């Protein structure tokens, strides 16, 4: 990952979007969507090294691997939801963006149900 290229790509995509927006507004939204997708694609593979560090630290710390998987899945759902909701908002559809965020919240809670159940069982056994 070359950070300079990523920053330059962001500026170039924004400039092209402004250039085309006077002539054809829908194409400027497409340029914005494509630019944000390409930026996310170039940033995300570098995230895998950070995730490996988190997983190895959790292994050394004695945390169960399934709980770390749950946490990382929730982070992934939030990441994708942010990209999609911002795209909808850029295109002027803020109602759709709100529903996407709502759906992501529910998906995150459903993903975390095993951890919540384990916690409640632990409390129940203690009491």
């Amino acid at each position: 990952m070359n950070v300079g290229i990523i920053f330059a790509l962001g500026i170039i995509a924004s400039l092209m979007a402004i250039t085309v927006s006077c002539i054809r507004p829908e194409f400027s939204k497409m340029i914005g969507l494509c630019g944000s997708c390409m930026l996310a694609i170039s940033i995300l593979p570098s995230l895998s090294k950070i995730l490996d560090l988190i997983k190895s630290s959790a292994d050394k710390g004695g945390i169960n691997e399934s709980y770390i998987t749950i946490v990382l899945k929730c982070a992934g759902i939030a990441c994708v939801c942010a990209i999609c909701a911002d795209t909808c908002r850029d295109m002027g559809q803020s109602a759709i963006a709100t529903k996407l965020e709502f759906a992501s919240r529910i998906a995150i809670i459903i993903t975390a149900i095993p951890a919540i159940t384990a916690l409640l069982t632990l409390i129940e056994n203690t009491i």
Partner: protein
Amino acid sequence: MDVNLIFQIAAIGITVAVIYHLLVRAGREDQAMLISIMGLIVVMMMVITQIKVLFDTVKTLFDL
């Protein structure tokens, strides 16, 4: 990561706008509308490939 894709989309947008204005001036407004819709569909096809790569990356990265 290909910067050329953004330039291609901008070039298609400008070309479609020019052809649209030419056709409207020539009096063929329905063909102008069809050309603009087709340009949008072509650009959408190019963007959808990027969206697919993005979702595949997120899926493999976060084990979703």
